[in-house]
């Protein structure tokens, strides 16, 4: 890792550690939710590495939240066991769902994942076991043994913030390493050309499933962290509206880089708080922002540096070289054929 990167990450973490003391009480809560959402979007991006976009991520987050809450409430399991189990159950659910879902690709996968997700979510509000539409209340908060202080109930925002920050950082580290390992490389390869990957022996089904399962594990962890902080969950919290927000965060941020979705969620969440005064108009801001990003940065905010670089380079080029003979040609037919990567269709 280059030195500059280490320094900047160090600075960011120093700021993150000091931050709660500079914040007002409700902003501390905001930070906790935001940090959890960072894990949600970054894990969602792992899915998109293989080129698939799902609409079930938030439901799997809910699965983690429900599992952990119910285990903690009904059999009194410790948070330290129920939380990872929440992740495991979400991952297992994803594994199970991968069999029907990965028969589909692209748009069909998107819609298929939406169908299963919504059916699962409706079952929470339908069956008493999950608490029905009211959901689960009075979810216990985690306890931690701190030397010198004894057993501590971690429910106040600052300690919980550090707990969340630690777990999410670990999650991010894992996701980062995974992406930069050969496995991540292979997932990326599947995204670009799944047939080529298959032809050199990559079992694309296996890798898609792996990405889905791991992403869901972290979504489940995120859900559990949320549940044990708020103390209550209900099916509406994990509905398609929430999913749409995750999708927006990820896409506005951009999926080309690890930090893209993080930029998306941080920026939009802060904007959302800033526009709280606008009350009824708040979603309008979202809508317009979304359209603007798609119009000017269709690959997300993280494509901005590259665009600027491109622009500079082009400017340099056109200054130095007479580019008249090299104007890039456009296959701008009136036809609606999408930009297939074909070369010479003869």
């Amino acid at each position, binding site marked *: 890792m280059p030195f500059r990167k280490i320094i900047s990450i160090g600075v960011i973490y120093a700021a993150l550690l000091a931050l709660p003391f500079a914040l007002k009480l409700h902003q501390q809560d905001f930070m906790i939710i935001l940090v959890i959402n960072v894990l949600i979007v970054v894990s969602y991006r792992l899915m998109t590495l293989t080129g698939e976009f799902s609409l079930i991520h938030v439901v799997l987050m809910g699965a983690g939240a429900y599992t952990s809450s119910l285990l903690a409430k009904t059999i009194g399991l410790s948070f330290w066991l129920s939380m990872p189990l929440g992740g495991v159950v979400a991952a297992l659910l994803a594994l199970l769902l991968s069999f029907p879902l990965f028969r589909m690709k692209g748009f069909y996968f998107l819609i298929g994942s939406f169908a299963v997700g919504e059916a699962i979510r409706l079952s929470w509000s339908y069956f008493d076991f999950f608490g029905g539409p009211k959901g689960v209340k009075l979810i216990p908060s985690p306890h931690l043994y701190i030397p010198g202080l004894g057993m501590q109930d971690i429910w106040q925002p600052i300690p919980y913030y550090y707990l969340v920050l630690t777990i999410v950082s670990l999650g991010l580290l894992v996701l980062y390493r995974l992406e930069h390992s050969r496995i991540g490389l292979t997932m990326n390869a599947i995204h670009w050309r799944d047939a080529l990957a298959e032809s050199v022996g990559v079992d694309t089904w296996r890798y898609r499933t792996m990405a889905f399962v791991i992403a869901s594990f972290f979504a489940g962890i995120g859900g559990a962290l949320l549940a044990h902080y708020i103390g209550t969950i209900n099916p509406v919290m994990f509905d398609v509206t929430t999913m749409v927000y995750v999708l927006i965060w990820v896409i506005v941020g951009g999926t080309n880089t690890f930090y893209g979705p993080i930029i998306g969620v941080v920026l939009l969440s802060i904007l959302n708080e800033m526009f709280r005064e606008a009350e009824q108009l708040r979603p309008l801001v979202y809508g317009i922002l979304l359209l603007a990003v798609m119009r000017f940065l269709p690959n997300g905010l993280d494509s901005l540096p590259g665009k600027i670089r491109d622009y500079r380079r082009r400017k340099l080029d056109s200054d130095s070289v007479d580019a008249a003979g090299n104007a890039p040609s456009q296959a701008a037919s*009136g036809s609606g054929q999408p930009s297939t990567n074909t070369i010479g*269709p003869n």
Partner: protein
Amino acid sequence: MLLEIQDIQVHYNKVAALKGISLKVEEGDMITLIGSNGAGKSTTLRTISGLVHPSVGQIRFKGQRIDRLSPDKVLKLGIAHVPEGRRIFPGLTAIENLRLGAFIRKDKQAVERDLERVLDHFPRLRERAHQLASTMSGGEQQMLSIGRALMSKPKLLLLDEPSLGLAPVIVKHIKEIIGEVNREHGVAVVLVEQNAELALDLSRYGYVLETGSIAIEGEAKGLMGNEHVRRAYLGL
């Protein structure tokens, strides 16, 4: 001069598909482009019909520049393109396909007359007029595709691999049809073919394309026995 192409270049992404091609078509003429896969034959036709725009060079049709026009404008000027693989509309009936060929025309009565003419010309299509195009055989689909193009009453017809995937008997029939279209309707034809024998036999003039450039050109009869052609095809 009906069509004149001056040194056009076409790039897909950054790769050059055509590296400077020039050719000419006279009124009522029939020329052919032959060459192996990837030589740039289809790209040339797609560039003429406006599906692709050249990065360099000009295309003139009856003296007017058309290299920046969209396909519907090019068609209105009188150039019809029968694409590779037929590309008929599978969910429409044969007759609906044919009528769509005349989509740009406003002269309703003349369209009906031409429809009758095309159906006379292709009795097989009349038999299957109300059948879904997807249920037709390959040869019938090819006829439909040519018939559809004729419905726009073109001055110039671009034919891309009309014999592709067809059995020899059908190929023969298609060849006859192309000849008739050229002679009887007075339509100029640019024919792209793998089947060089067929193409050169029909045409007045031929161009042999190799990797985006014209390797050799000349009167079709002269090209027939040309070593260059044989080599391009069979590696002699």
